[in-house]
């Protein structure tokens, strides 16, 4: 009897979570794959016999859709500008906070971390107000130093940069903590030995600190890159993709086609293209990481 229960026990423990993951993560992948070859829309939702198999036409159509192509361009802009900025800022701040080693610097850790736990909708609302061209606080600050007003969310390029600034502000915290944990893992002896050998602080930073942070940097790069590829809430709330779709990201494009235009099949095709892009980016990252590991051996 006892044997019987303990044999069943692990399945009982894991099954609720596993069932939910199956239903809401694994099965959906299969469903998404299938519906990306159909023309399912609101009509099909009500009556499944109205769903037609359309082959690759969703994919053909989406790859010539100017809005989709624009959203790919915007997303690349976010990745290319955003990822290095996040890494540089969070690493820089982590190094500076780690350098201090006292209570005041502990306080800074708290300050820089706070934005990353706050609600994205609420902060987007706050930043929309800060960015307001006529009575926003940022343009007021600029006017104090005689800089003419910046069209934060009105100019196509500036709008993208403004969204990146907001997302950067939110992203620093978590990544800084990861870098800090890694920094504290570097043995102090390395620095002592280096300064005995006459290495100055800058040499120590570039010869010891940054190489020792390789894994943390790798981790932050991958997660940040995937995060920017899925950039959604900020453009959705602040600009709704505008002006003229200049801030529409791929994720926002998918959301809009799926839930505002109810073109489920079309949106699913878009989401699969995004998925493949994420997989490719991750694989390339792993390849680079492995190569640089081999070189260092």
């Amino acid at each position, binding site marked *: 009897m006892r044997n019987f229960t*303990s*044999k069943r*026990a*692990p*399945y009982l*423990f*894991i099954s*609720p*979570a*596993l069932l*939910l*993951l199956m*239903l*809401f*993560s*694994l*099965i*959906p*992948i299969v*469903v*998404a794959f299938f519906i990306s070859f159909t023309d*399912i829309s609101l009509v099909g*939702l009500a009556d499944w016999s109205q769903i037609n198999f359309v082959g690759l036409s969703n994919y053909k159509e989406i790859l010539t859709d100017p809005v989709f192509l624009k959203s790919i361009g915007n997303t690349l802009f976010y990745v290319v500008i955003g990822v290095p900025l996040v890494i540089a800022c969070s690493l820089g701040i982590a190094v*500076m*906070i780690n350098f*201090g080693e006292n209570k*005041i610097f502990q306080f800074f850790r*708290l*300050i820089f*971390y*706070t*934005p990353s*736990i*706050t*609600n*994205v*909708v*609420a*902060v987007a609302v*706050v930043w929309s*107000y*800060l960015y307001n061209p006529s*009575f926003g*606080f940022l343009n*007021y600050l600029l006017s104090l130093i005689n800089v003419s007003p910046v069209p934060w969310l009105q100019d196509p390029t500036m709008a993208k940069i403004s969204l990146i600034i907001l997302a950067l*502000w939110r992203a*620093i915290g978590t990544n800084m*903590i990861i870098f800090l944990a*890694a920094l504290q*893992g570097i043995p102090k002896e390395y620095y002592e030995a280096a300064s005995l050998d006459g290495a100055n602080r800058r040499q120590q930073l570039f010869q010891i600190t940054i190489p020792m942070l390789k894994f943390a940097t790798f*981790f932050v790069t991958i997660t940040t890159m995937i995060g920017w*590829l*899925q950039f959604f809430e900020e453009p959705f*709330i602040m600009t709704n993709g505008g002006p003229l779709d200049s801030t529409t990201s*791929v994720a926002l494009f*998918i959301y809009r086609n799926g839930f505002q235009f109810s073109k489920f099949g079309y949106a*699913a095709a878009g*989401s*699969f293209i*995004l998925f493949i892009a994420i997989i490719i980016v991750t694989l390339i990252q792993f390849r680079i990481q492995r190569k640089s590991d081999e070189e260092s051996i």
Partner: protein
Amino acid sequence: MNTSLKQTRTSKWIVGIILTVGGFFMVLPFIWMILSSLKTDAEIMQFPPTIWPQEFTLANFKELFLAFNFAVYLKNTLIIVLCSFGGLILNAMAGYGFAKYNFKGKNILFYLVLATMMIPGQVTMIPVYLILNAMGLTNTMAGIVLPGLVGAFAIFLFRQFMSTISNELLEAARLDGASEWKIFWKIIMPVSRPVIAVQGILTFIGAWNSFLWPLIMANDEKYYTLSVGLQLLKGQYASNYALQMAGSTFMIIPIIIVFMIFQKYILQGFNVSGLK
């Protein structure tokens, strides 16, 4: 030696100043939000803007509850928070199952769990909506809560932590005739307090902030969460910034308070998760 000490001190000052300036920009949006939420509507529209409110008013906060359904949004958000703590227990159970038992298919199932971490939300968003629609759960609380109830990362962290619990402890309890279920509640859960604390806080923050699923699933205002309500407010009252700032303050301040109280656990949590 003396000069290098001096050098260290000056560079500490320089670093301190850079961090102060950076820190100022980090907190600036929060300060501006709180100050603006206490201003009157007329004062908000002034140019140049006043920094400190000329007269403090709580009218904006009152309006959130009187003219809008923020009480309903708050109730829904709290329901989601409660449900997600239920999900936390499911995650802990799964973590325990993977950590302390050997069973057929264990590795494959665990890899499947890990694989779900790689799947971007945008891919599952539409099919999950279709699945919930087929189950008749659109525009219900269940439909809002279920998709985010369990998470692979939490299961992974629970498993990592629970693997370190000694097997002798469990065997001793089994010899005493404790059931597997009792072992989980009376031994595993109390010992796992550190990881439960971290996960509990993260779960609270996640649930309090939940936005996308409520937005997709709720057609009806009676199921809106605070985030969805705030987004609605921003759309409908685009120029009433005082009200918007009050709504944002109402959402952000509880999170900051929870964070300040438990920050030690959260910041340690990154070490528990083995990202060192």
